[in-house]
Structures are given as C-alpha cells and as structure tokens.
C-alpha cells in the first residue's frame, strides 16, 4: 500500500528537557488530511501521542499545529497539498507545551475577558433595524474560530512577549466595534492596554487565518487609525477634555 512518512514532535515536559521528532509511516488514502495521519498514529502505532482535536470539519479550532513550519489546522491540511511529500508536524510555539502537540492556550481566555463587551446604545427602538451590509461587516470578525494560528505566527508574541494581546483579540474588538448598534469605541483600549502599537503590520496573521478574515486590513489598521484620530483630532481632544471636566 502507498504510504506517507510523518515526522511528529514528541515531548513530555514533565520528564523530557528536549523534544524530538519521530518518524511514523502511515498508509496514504485518497484525500486524507494531516489529522487523519495523526489519528492513525494514535490508534495503530503509538497511543501515547497527545493532541487536541474534535470536529474534523474546520469549525471548532482545536487542532492547530505547525505543519512544515506553517501554522495550520491539521484537519484542513490535505497531505497531497504538501510539497515533496515531506510532512513535519510541530506544536504551535507561541504557547506553553502540555505534551507533544497539545499546548496551553488558556492565557487567551483572560485576555478576551478584558475587552469591553457588547454594549448596545441606550433607548433603541424595537425591533432593532440593522442593514444586512452592516451585519456582514461585523460577521467577518465574528467568524473567528479561535484557533490562535494568528497568535502563533505573530512575531511580536513569539519573539518579544511584549504585552500585545495579539491579532485574535484585535479581531474580537473589531467584531464588537463594527456592530452598528454598539455604543463603545475600543480602539483606545486596544492601543493603550492591549499593546496594539507593537504590531507593525506584517500581515502574517492574515495569511494563516483559516477563516480568511482580513485581520490586518479590516481589523488591525482601522483599530489603529481610529485611536490615532481620536488622539490627534482637535475636536476629539476638545470633547475628551470636556468629558474629563464633567467627571470632576
């Protein structure tokens, strides 16, 4: 039978200082994806392999990994799409390792909690009227499946750990800011508290997004621009000073 060799990162941090790549030979099947190969390994070759997966349909965002060094979903990467048939599978590197391909992405839950929630304007007439165009605009960001591949590829997070929440969280803020009936502007929070200033728009996040969200163009840049406008716009400065005055 035709087969394929997959080189998989293995490490149990409790007992091993260094990780290693182990080669497994897996039968090749028409249309198989990398996750099929991983499941085959776990079931037939080495049950000690740990990885996180669930829906197998690209919807749940569990099976993030680096396939030939590119952040990818294992369930959406077809074996026959990989050049030269070489397959190296590693855990996403931006987060602490639990074991083998399973990583601890829980810090994201705390970050998400800090972004100001959906706050509809007061006194809206019911039923709410919203145009489909506006729905589509916020829906682009609401599509995010929280696979954290954009976080993984982000060089600010990988190399500097510099207090930047990361692309996923800018997408979150944008999804709320773009709701036509929302009353808040999260751009100042994103720039001041969420470290958006560290992003220098290399667009790597957009390239790896399995949902094809235009993270840089439609979320990051508008959030950056709005904050700048608010900061340097004389009218905005005037309004801000009035607001502060009012609170005193």
């Amino acid at each position, binding site marked *: 039978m035709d087969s394929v060799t997959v080189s998989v990162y293995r490490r*149990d941090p*409790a007992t091993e200082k260094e990780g290693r790549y182990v080669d497994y030979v897996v039968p090749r099947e028409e*249309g198989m994806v990398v996750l099929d190969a991983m499941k085959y390994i*776990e*079931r037939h070759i080495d*049950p*000690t392999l*740990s*990885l*996180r*997966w*669930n*829906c*197998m*349909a*690209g*919807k*749940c*965002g*569990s099976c993030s990994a680096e396939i030939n060094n590119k952040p990818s979903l294992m369930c*959406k990467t077809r074996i026959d799409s990989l050049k030269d048939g070489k397959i190296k599978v590693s855990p996403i590197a931006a987060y602490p390792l*639990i*074991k*083998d391909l*399973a990583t*601890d*992405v*829980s810090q994201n*839950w705390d970050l*998400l*909690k800090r972004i100001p*929630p*959906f706050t*509809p304007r007061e006194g809206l007439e019911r*039923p*709410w*009227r*919203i*145009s*489909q165009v506006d*729905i589509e605009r*916020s*829906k682009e960001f*609401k*599509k995010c*499946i*929280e696979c954290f591949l954009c976080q993984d590829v982000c060089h600010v997070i990988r190399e500097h750990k510099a207090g930047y929440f990361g692309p996923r969280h800018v997408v979150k803020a944008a999804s*709320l800011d773009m*709701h036509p009936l*929302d009353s808040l502007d999260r751009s100042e929070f994103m720039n001041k508290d969420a470290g958006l200033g560290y992003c220098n728009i290399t667009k790597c996040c957009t390239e790896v997004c399995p949902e094809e969200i235009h993270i840089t163009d439609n979320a990051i840049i508008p959030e950056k621009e709005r904050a700048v406008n608010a900061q340097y716009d004389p009218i905005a400065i005037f309004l801000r000073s009035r607001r502060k005055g009012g609170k005193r």
Partner: protein
Amino acid sequence: MEIYLVEIFDYDLVIVGSGLAGLRAAIEAARTGNGKLRIAIIAKNQLMRPHSISAEGGSAAVLYTEEGDSFDLHAYDTIKGSDYLGDQDVVEFFVRQCPVDVLELEHWGIPWARREDGRIAQRPFGGHSYPRATFASDRTGFYEVHTLYDTLLKYGNVDKYHEQFVYDFIIENNRFKGVMALDIPTGQIRIFKARAGIIATGGLGRLYGYTTYSHLVTGDGLAIALRRGMRLKDIEFIQFHPTGLVPSGILITEGVRGDGGILRNAKGERFMEKYAPTKKDLAPRDIVSRSMMTEILEGRGFKGPNGLDYLLLDFSPIGAEKIKEKLSQVREIGMHYVGIDPLESPLPVRPAAHYTMGGIDVTRTGFTGITGLWAAGEAACYSVHGANRLGANSTSECIVFGKIAGGESAKWLLKDNGMITLSEGEMSSAEDFISDAYKDKGDNDPYEIKRELWSTMDKYAYVFRNEKDLTEGLKVIRGLIERSGKISISEKGNVYNQNLISTLEMKNLVELAEVVVFSALQRKESRGSHFRTDYPKRDDENFLKHTIIQRVDGAPQITYRPVTLTKWKPEPRVY
C-alpha cells in the same frame, strides 16, 4: 502513573457541558443568583468549542404574527412533526418562549440575517408551515455559542473549567452533591462539590459511525445517569439527517433545501415529489431520510465508498448569489472535503445520525427527580420533539430550556440553604474509579470496540429497523459490553491521556447502545424516526406513549408513560 484526588471545589451550582444549553443555563443562573451564587461551568474540551457550533440552519421562532405565523401553527407543526409523541403542553410553552429568547440573543449582539427593512429575516425549514428559522448565514449555532459565551463573560461569579472529563455524579439518598472529573491536562482528579447541578452534556450520536456529530458527543451524561439509576425517555428515537456529506458525514444544512435546493436520484429525478407531494424536499427529516433510503435500496442511488451509497443534492435552483451569501460555509465544505463546488455540481449525500430525540427524563422545568439535579438541551428529554424533531427546533430548545433549568436551579438554591458534606468513601471512590480504569484487564483494543459498535449501529439500528436486525444488534452490543471490561490502556502517563478518555467514552457508548436498541426492539410500531419494516404502521392504540428505560440490577427495564395531549388529536401524517 499516580492518581490523586488533588482538588475539591465547593460550588452552589455546577453545570456540566458548555454547549448552547449549558451556556444559557449558566447565564440565567448567574442573573437569577445576582452575585449570591458561586457557579462552575465545566466542559470536556475547551469551553467555546462545543458541538453546538456545528448547528447550521437556524432557530425556530414565531416573529411575524401579522404576516400569518402563529404560536398555534408552530405548535401544530412541531406536534405533527413529532408524530404525536411530543407532550403538547410542553410544546405550547416552548413555542411561546422561542421569540423571547431569540430576541434576547439579538440584544446580546448575534448577527441575525436581516430583511430589506432591517428587521430579522427568517428562512423556510423542513416541516414548518411558515418560514420561521431565524438564522446567521449557515453557522447559526456557532454565532449563538459565541454570543452566549461573550455574554457569560459579563458575570464575575461563574468559573469556567476547560478539558474536564466528568465520569460520575455524586448522589446520596436521591440528593445530588457534585461531580467527579478528570482534569485532562494533568490527569489528576477533581471533585466539584455542589448543592445543585445541571446536566447539559448533549446527545449520544457517536454511537454511529456515519454521523454529523463531532467525536466529542459520546453521551457521557446520559451514561452516568443510567448507571446512577436515573430514567431515560424515548431513547430509541434517533434522527437521521437527510443530507450528511458522503463519505465524512459532515452536515449539509437543511437550509440548502429551505432556500430551494433539490434532492435527485441517479436517474436525475426529483423523487421527493413521489413521497411528499406537498412539502416535497422540505418534508420533515424522518420522511425525507426514509424516502432517500427507499431510493437507494431500490437501486436508484449511486455506488459510494464503504457501502455509503448516495443521492445528489442539487443547488442549481438556488442561484449563485444566494449560495454565496447564505450558504457560504456549506460551499466551502463541498470544495474542501469532496472537491466539489456546489455552484457547479451537486453534492453526494446520504442520511446520517444527527440528533437524539430522547434523553434524561425531566419535568417541564428540567427537574430530573434527583433533588438538586436538572438537565437541559439534547441530554434532556422535555418531550418537545417526540419521535421526530423538526429542523431549527433544537437550538431554540437549548436556549429556551437552558434558561429554564438555569433559572429554576438558581431559585431553588436561593431558597434552600441545606449544606452537603462528602464522605470519605465518596472521595476515595473518585480515585478508585480512575485507578481501576488504568489496570490491565485484558487485551481488547478500545478503538476496535468503538469501530465494531459503529458498524453494528449503522447496520442494525439505522433508518429502517426490524426484529431480526435489532435482536442481532443487541447480541453484538452485549458482546461489546463484555469485552469493554477486558481492556488494557496502553498509555500509562497522566498528562493529556487520550487513550484513557477514549476508553471511558467507549464504555459510555456501548452501555447506551444497549438501551437504544433494547427500547427500539420493544416499540413494535413505526413512529417518526423509528421505522420498523415488520410493523410499518403507527399504532396509537398500543404505543401512543413514552418509553421510560432504567437499569435495574444491571439489566434494562422498560415502563411506559402516557403522552400529554391538549388540542391536537393524532391524525395521519401527510405532507
């Protein structure tokens, strides 16, 4: 491998499961408790990745009475769809609550699709006589989960626990006291001691191999309930969704047919005209699935891989613009998983196990009969769906009854100050259960048993059933239960041990398979999704009643309970 009980948490309320029902229950309990209750919501995987995200088509709700929709119409559609096994008082309550809760989601920020005038749009769905499926493109469940999750974040007194495998409920003298869980990342044991609990663990669809369910849905809550002597209701009724994508079983939403798509056989015929002259492709799911299997069995299907013979779902009547706007995900699934763009060619489909109409027997408020324990969502059987659920009614059910269970449990907790204590024995039994699971007991392979279970259920308890097949199936399943006790877990490490979890899930599944097939054998009639070729007629005289199954001294035992009828008398189901 060392197993320890490392933590005992102390809560007022523990919610097991983070799908639509669990999330909605958590919000309502937090809101009702108003800061006075400590609440935990725990999930088998990461909290925002429940199987509910896979729901595609919509949530049913009567929004436009001025245009001809009405509560009575929604109730009648649901009851006729249930083949008169739905409890009519519960259905009437349910349909009145749907619009309230669907609008609540709107106010929490969900991107419901709109009409030209900016109000909420709705799409037609199978078995509904008015287009009342409220939707957010073809990812309704996904947006609902995220909207609820975001809303839950506003409440400070709800702790969230990810990747906890719950393997037992602690119940003493019919009083709920908490749950035992394995912390998957560390492999250690935690007890969530709680004065009240809500089971929202979903259905049992992974009994089947060819299914739209994700691998997560292994009926854990139902299996524990059964082991704990609780009652399951109408568990023989499994819905087969007409359009599972061959060969993976990935769901292709009914919205495709709602928006104009058509099923065709190998001769290119629109065969549904024959079986349901009025509703055609939008007849309820049980009828469409049966019609499809008839076409396939009579030789008008296409040969598929591994015996998965199929028919075609033709998108062409819908039009390219509408497909791109309203069915974008389905289109992507087609292109990605079978290399077919539905804009150009039809998709290969076949009925796939999709929904569990039955579940834990609960009252209208979600109460299980165990003091302090409620259930909601697909895990529970409120008897809204009876013998066959209508599309778009399940996500609505989750939010309606999740809210009820959350509110009821919280109100009860605020009144009841009774303390609970755990005994030494209960704590040590938590450790013993897992230590015992690690012990070498034989050389059976858990994955092999699961595969055999899948092929057994796919073969003997599918769309068409009969005495001989079910008897044979039951025999095989009992063999599998026997073998499931003679297993060695080859991975001995604690950390992220999926071998252990898979084995425990497999045990849950084989035990549930027994009661599903046992109940199906006893129901000697055809009603809704349960079709017996040896008893092809509905038999209201003998079987207009709910199946209640319980395990007594290790053996399944069935009793029956009458169906509640209010204003709709059972009549022939013609579409």
